[in-house]
């Protein structure tokens, strides 16, 4: 069994709940300890740690940080909005709480005291810290995007922190034990080396990890059924809005409508009337062509329901069909675009197009 990483010493009087030990009395300048690279089981070997401490001494970053988790007895913590910015290359290893006994500490005593409660800011120590970790970091995005395909070849990312951590804890395992990890196709190998620091990349294909997000499977199944069953009738797009283009003969630009908002053909055609009334009226108003009559709202209705215009749609097969034949549910599933055409053009759609265009476009 490996010796403990942290020895907890009971009875630290000045700290209420010591997760760590050896906290000096207040009143002294508190020593800073490098908590990351100090024990025998550190994930970084000592040479890296030494370089780190040198970096630290030259790159002290004493910006006020947003959180002061002061020890009891120190100043009460004030909370300032977080300002700390990532700066690659700057390695700030100052810690708030000395964590480890002095025997294996690297004392960064030149840093400012902790009595004020300055917290240790997290910088992307990973990046500058060691080659190993920076390798891991650059590979992270790669790993994440390829997470789905990684199930076959997990070797490269394992050079990241997992292998480093492994070096310290593995006793006698085979060198490639990491690759032996069963790669379940359900994505449990989406480990953290691969997906941290991914904020700027919203992955196009989100790798679905088993059990994430942690929602009860009962709830997931029920909601999936609910979404299918619910009828959206109040004008708001449903969970998946169904927008289709609508063009009108002669209109200078097209419109889009969300088919899920409506539940009958009547509603759809009324909406289209309202939408395109401006075109029909505008046409006459703008051009003022003598041959056309000035249209009123009621005349417009006649237009669409009467002799001049019919509503047609292009279905999934690419055919242009007359709106109104099939049940509404079926219609919205197959409709890809809408077109309002003159009934004279629509004659080719069906032998009785003329009569149909005179009726209301509803089932």
């Amino acid at each position, binding site marked *: 069994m490996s010796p403990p*990483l942290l020895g907890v010493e009971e009875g630290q009087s000045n700290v209420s709940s010591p997760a760590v030990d050896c906290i000096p009395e207040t009143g002294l300048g508190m020593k800073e300890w490098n908590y990351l690279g100090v024990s025998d089981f550190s994930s970084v070997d000592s040479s890296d740690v030494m370089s780190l401490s040198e970096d630290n001494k030259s790159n002290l970053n004493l910006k006020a940080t947003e*959180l002061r988790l002061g020890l009891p007895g120190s100043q009460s913590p004030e909370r300032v909005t*977080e300002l700390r910015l990532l700066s690659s290359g700057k390695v700030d290893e100052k810690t708030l709480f000395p964590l480890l006994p002095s025997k294996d500490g690297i004392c960064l005593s030149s840093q400012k005291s902790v009595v004020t409660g300055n917290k240790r800011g997290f910088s992307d120590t990973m990046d500058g810290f060691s080659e190993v970790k920076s390798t891991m970091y650059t590979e992270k995005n790669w790993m994440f995007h390829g997470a789905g395909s990684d199930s076959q070849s997990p070797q490269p990312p394992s050079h990241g922190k997992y292998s480093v951590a492994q070096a310290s804890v593995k006793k006698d395992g085979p060198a490639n034990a990491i690759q032996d990890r069963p790669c379940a196709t359900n994505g449990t190998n989406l480990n953290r080396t691969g997906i941290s620091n991914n904020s700027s990349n919203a992955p196009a294909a989100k790798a679905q990890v088993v059990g994430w997000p942690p929602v009860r499977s009962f709830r997931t199944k029920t909601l999936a059924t609910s979404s299918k069953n619910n009828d959206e009738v109040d004008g708001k797009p449903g969970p998946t809005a169904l927008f289709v283009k609508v063009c009108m003969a002669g209109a200078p630009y097209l419109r889009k409508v969300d088919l899920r908002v409506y539940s009958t053909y009547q509603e759809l055609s009324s909406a289209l009337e309202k939408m395109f009334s401006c075109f029909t009226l505008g046409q006459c108003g703008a051009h003022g062509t003598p041959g056309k009559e000035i249209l009123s709202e009621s005349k417009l209705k006649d237009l669409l329901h009467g002799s001049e215009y019919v509503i047609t749609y292009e279905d999934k097969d690419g055919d242009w069909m007359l709106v109104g034949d099939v049940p509404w549910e079926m219609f919205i599933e197959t409709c890809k675009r809408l077109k309002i055409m003159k009934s004279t053009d629509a004659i080719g759609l069906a032998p009785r197009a003329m009569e149909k265009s005179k009726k209301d476009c509803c089932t």
Partner: protein
Amino acid sequence: MMNYFPDEVLEHVFDFITCHKDRNSVSLVCKSWHRIERYSRRRVFIGNCYSISPERLIARFPGVKSLTLKGKPHFADFNLVPYDWGGFVYPWIKVLAETGIGLEELRLKRMVVSDESLELLSKSFVNFQSLVLVSCDGFSADGLAAIAANCRFLRELDLQENEVDDHRGHWLSCFPESCTSLVSLNFACLKGEVNLGALERLVSRSPNLKSLRLNRSVPLDTLQKLLMRAPQLVDLGIGSYVHDPLSEASNKLKHAIQRCKSIMSLSGFLEVAPRCMSAIYPICGNLTTLNLSYAPGIHGNKLTKLIQHCRKLQRLWILDCIGDKGLGVVASTCKELQELRVFPSDPFGAGNDAVTEEGLVLVSAGCPKLNSLLYFCQQMTNAALITVAKNCPNFIRFRLCILDPVRPDPVTNQPLDEGFGAIVQSCKQLKRLSLSGLLTDQVFLYIGMYAEQLEMLSIAFAADSDKGMLYVLNGCKKLRKLEIRDCPFGNAALLEDVGKYETMRSLWMSSCEVTLGGCKTVAENMPSLNVEIINESGQTVFNLDEGQKVDKMYLYRTLVGHRKDAPESNQTYLKCRGDLTRSDHHEPSLNDMIKDMKLKNISGDDDFIISESNNFKLQSQLFEKEEAEIMILKWKRL
């Protein structure tokens, strides 16, 4: 002094102590208190059904009337546990039935409940009154029919989020005409049809009915009739709520709802036409609990308008389609809010409708009594968490789930260590915490330092090294349940202090760095722990090399050794001296237990397991005195 009181007097005094923890503490004061307490104990809570056997339960508490059992580990909810893992209730019912226990109430969570067990249950306990099943599976409507038919004094049948095979809806008709004792009926989770006429008649003859939760198949006109017959309802779960607001049916419904002046809890709307929400506005003013988390059809203006009527709300469960703006409405309306749960309506999608840190900050600012949170969101910032921690220092449960599991603070690109650190520092009563987002070892340092009351911690995709887990194990003295997935914690962390696991109910680690050798080490050194390993790859555990990582490890303390109903893919290890053979169940001897057990902090535990195991220690100390006064010291600690 106490020694002058006869037992009956002490028993009467103990009747006033109802909380499990307190009764466990009482039982450890001295021998006579232990004896009196155990004979007078009526309600027993067992957080892990494999930690004790039904025989031991009955031996200790022969008068038990109400039993609560939990089976599968929590992560079973998220499909991380094989379906055949275990958690069968049948053996419990069988033993209870055979020993003539007068069971009246059974509450099960994440257990496998067969129709056979339900039938046995219904026939074995004359006075059986209350069955509550949460997240269980394994039964069908036939089992429910048996309960309905045979439990003559049934008061409560409460089915919450169970996977039920209810191909036949006849079970409601099985309630005999003589059954008039129902107080609570919840079948919202059933998917199939029910006999509506039987339902109406049942409700008509149940004058004490206070809680009624219908499933999706119950249409509006039936709802209206039920409400007319049961205006005394306190808790209503609506099934189907689809109607035309101008119709006669809608008018009748409005009238019926208005008569229900006692409704304080509303849920369901499993099918909903949101135009009609105005019909329920009259009762919204009294609501203290509102659960719309299964009603994706209600969103946007309809949702916010509804919430604006609910000024007394204390508990709100909703979907994230409410949006940050909607949460602002909650913040300005629901000043009494204590518990908020925001579930994802589209967990795997682009999450366009989801909430962000803004909504949470608004709620924290507007609802100072907030103490329980479950929040699924697109993103979270440290600044927001710090603000929330400042606004709401009373959190008892804080569960945050950022849908992208390792997302950092999007504003600063930092991990969320500081934000969660603020939460644990500010919320000194925090008992349950779930973390998400990009997190390093630092957050665990904070947790170990500040989360003194923490009892349950859920970690996923976090930390950099074993240190994270060590901080927690060393620092959180009251930790009972620790569940970890996809973190780089290995044997060093696992083996640092194996005695700690005896003070906890369970530890779950999946997709971590723990190897078979590490698990074996724990098992070999801790006879009071069962170490179970679940391997996905199909290999039996015996064929694994010691250096190989295990997929899933679940270890828990137990007084009854390893279980016999584990599936083949999943082995448990007892103390074994070098060889891997599965030894038969053996009761650890008293001396073994004394040698191996340390009397750690016992006051933080619901289970009577600790008090049961410490019972031996009491005896072993040749505790002579029967009386209470010499145990004053111990009592103070309790």
